[in-house]
């Protein structure tokens, strides 16, 4: 296993290196730079040039890249051009908000998705099934920003029972913090839960037609037992695979939902940094995001290799 892991490391390092180059180059291809953003709307080119020199942005690109990479390897992601604050601090300030939102949205997606799928899949047909199908279709067609706005109108303005703007950290005040989280998490989770539910329902429909289910029915096994022990258990694997993908989409959707509910998370930081051409913040965010993806991929491969010896053996040949 250790050998398998070691063989995976070079490709991971290569991905991270390529990412660091892309993250450095791509933002610089856009017109304008942090000096223009800092100089303000009434600046002349002479003043912008002076700020550019102060920030060291007039140095050769290779020098800037190597300088940044050297510091990044030591965990120093430089100082934001626009705010003058260490990038690590800026990201740490925002990470908690996004993590709390993503984790609760992920949990809601699992619970609601499996619940909807099970409720629809457990009954062959009928009004309940039709109702859930319609609900899933509506939710699937609804982007996160729309579900967010509808929740704001319904539970924030018409019947104001939950806060619709801002945030309180769960770590600071769990009782209030959870109330600030519910609506944005629900807005994020609903479309994804519908997708998971629809997939589970399809898998259960397919499983119902399998021989072992017919045998169980013929043997007189109670319907509930057939659903839980045979149909559901054999349908869950495909849903579990999709949960990972859907969780990635939750993180993507968080950028929009953070804007709707005025939460200061990583998505909002990324968008602001793009507008202000705050290169070093974008570089750090990109590198960290890809680093997490690489780590997740490695862990997945390790897990699969541990479960399936053929992967390990295949990898050694």
């Amino acid at each position, binding site marked *: 296993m250790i050998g398998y892991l070691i063989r995976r490391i070079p490709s991971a390092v290569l991905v991270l290196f390529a990412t660091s180059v892309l993250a450095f180059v791509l933002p610089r291809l*856009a*017109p*304008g*730079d942090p000096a*223009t*953003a*800092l*100089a*303000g*709307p*009434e*600046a*002349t*080119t*002479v*003043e*912008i040039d*002076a*700020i550019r020199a*102060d920030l060291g942005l007039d140095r050769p690109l290779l020098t800037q890249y190597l300088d940044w990479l050297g510091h990044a390897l030591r965990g120093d992601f430089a*100082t*934001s051009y*626009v*705010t*003058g*604050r260490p990038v690590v601090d*800026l990201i740490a*300030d*925002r990470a908690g908000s996004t993590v709390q939102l993503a984790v609760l949205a992920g949990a809601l997606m699992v619970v609601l998705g499996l619940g909807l799928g099970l409720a629809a899949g457990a009954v062959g047909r009928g009004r309940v099934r039709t109702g859930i199908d319609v609900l899933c279709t509506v939710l699937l067609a609804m982007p996160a920003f729309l579900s967010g*706005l509808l929740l*704001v109108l319904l539970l*924030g*303005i018409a019947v*104001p*029972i*939950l*806060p*619709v*703007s*801002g945030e*309180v950290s769960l770590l600071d005040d769990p*009782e*209030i913090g959870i*109330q*600030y989280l519910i609506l944005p998490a629900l807005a994020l989770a609903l479309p994804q839960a519908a997708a998971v539910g629809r997939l589970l329902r399809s898998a259960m429909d397919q499983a119902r037609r399998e021989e072992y289910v017919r045998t169980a029915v013929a043997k007189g096994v*109670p319907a509930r037992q057939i659903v839980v022990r045979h149909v559901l258990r054999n349908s869950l694997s495909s849903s579990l695979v999709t949960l990972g993908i859907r969780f990635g989409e939750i993180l993507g959707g968080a950028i929009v939902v953070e*804007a*709707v*509910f*005025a939460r*200061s998370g990583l998505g*909002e*930081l990324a968008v*602001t940094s793009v*507008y*202000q*051409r705050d290169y070093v913040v974008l570089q750090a965010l990109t590198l960290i995001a890809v680093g997490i993806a690489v780590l997740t991929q490695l862990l997945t491969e390790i897990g699969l290799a541990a479960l399936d010896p053929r992967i390990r053996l295949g990898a050694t040949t």
Partner: protein
Amino acid sequence: MNERGNPPPGRSAVTRRTILLGMAGLGAGTLLSGCRLAVAEARGDTGAGDGPRAGGTLMVAVNSDPAPAAAQSQLTTSMTWRRLVFETLSSYDDNGVPQPALATGWELGEGGRVVTIDLRRDVLLHSGRPMDARDVMYSLKRPAEPASGSQVRSIAALITDMTADDPWTVRVRLSRPAANLFDLFELASIIDHESGAGLADGSAVIGTGPFRWESWVPGSSLSMVRNPHYRVQGRPYLDRIQQTTIGDATALVTAVRGSRAQVAYGTAPLDAKGLSADGRFTVVPSAAAAYSVGITVTEAPFTDVRVRQAIGYAIDRERINSSVFAGYGEASSLWWTRRDPGWSEAQSRAYTFDPDRARALIEQAGAVGSEVVFDVRSILAVRSMAEIVRYDLENVGLRVRIQALDDVTFNQRLAAGKLSALWASAFGLADIGAVTFASSVPAFLPSRNASRFDSAEYRRLVDAALTADEPNRASSVRAIGSFIHEQAFDHCVVVAPLMTVQSRRLRDAGKTALGALRLDDAYLV
């Protein structure tokens, strides 16, 4: 339990599921009844308004993240805190006359080339040290630095020498008289000279204002607390001001409607109009901006002045004011407001909607069917304005292709004079007066402007206004307005204020002449 799920005869209908559901419901009910509700906490206490009351935290939602380095700039990134943390030497009254603030008086000598400023002696900085001449000299010099982003940098750059006769007297020598000197005094917040470098990252933001800068989380929030040593006894009333950055226009409105904030600064005009019908809120105009259409005079067909003038007649300003700015603005051909002594009613109506005249001018110039690229700053109001302008211009015979540019790209091209043939933008200096406007905004600079309009006469007129004495100031400003109208390298469309929506719980909130938030006397009920 039989196959249908019904209880067997003789057994109770209360199943295990019913009991569990009942217990869950009871538990949830108990939990909720003892639970603090975030909506209730955000709403806060309300009470009758019978006079000022001390204490309380004011929640302000702002559409731009505070930038401490902009402490001496007229930008949305400083409007909501600049006058709370800092004060200035003088401040304009409603008639545009400078009144003493941190200065007790001033005296002009040598034909306006030397200014002697007397300072108050009872002012403490937030650090606890008495404010003195060193802080004033540092603060008057700082706007000249590019990193300050200040619009009065051209005035600060005139300072050739500053000396302190004593800790409370500053003598400033200028390279030439400056008609707009008090614009510098109005905008140059007095900053602690010992910690001025801390403005770059917000680690030290020390002034003399009624509130002390406590903490800033970039892109998220700013906390300010009451300055107990403020020079005005008993002020301010509020204990704390908490500002939250909300860039999304809908979320900004939601914050004030949902009682998260008592003030929403920078609300979209149409949103403000909607909230004005709600008795819980008042809508207050703030700093004014001039929304204009600029023209590159070296690009065909705008090399012909008749086509440039035709643009002015083609635009339906009143429609833009009502559709985009909900009627809060003023359709005007002048880029400055009535505050400027040189403002004139006739000049503000120099170009009125006359599509027939515009069409005729374009035909005379042989420019019918010309295709022009229209660069548009990516601000909601500017984009909306540009769509109407495009319609109007196509109506008089031009073909227009809109190109939206984000702020940074637009500013870079504006500064470098590399915008397309037409462009739409907004300039936030409308309140500051024509002289500073024409000598600070890149689109109007006499030396090298974004329109690439080069004229010895224009340079002469701006120079004359910059050095004009008081009796001649109004006429010199009118001469600039008249010349730009004639040459038509820029057309003002609407002068409109930034909109602030305030809860009626907030009383006696004010603003400076330039629209910066002022809360010395404000209190919550």
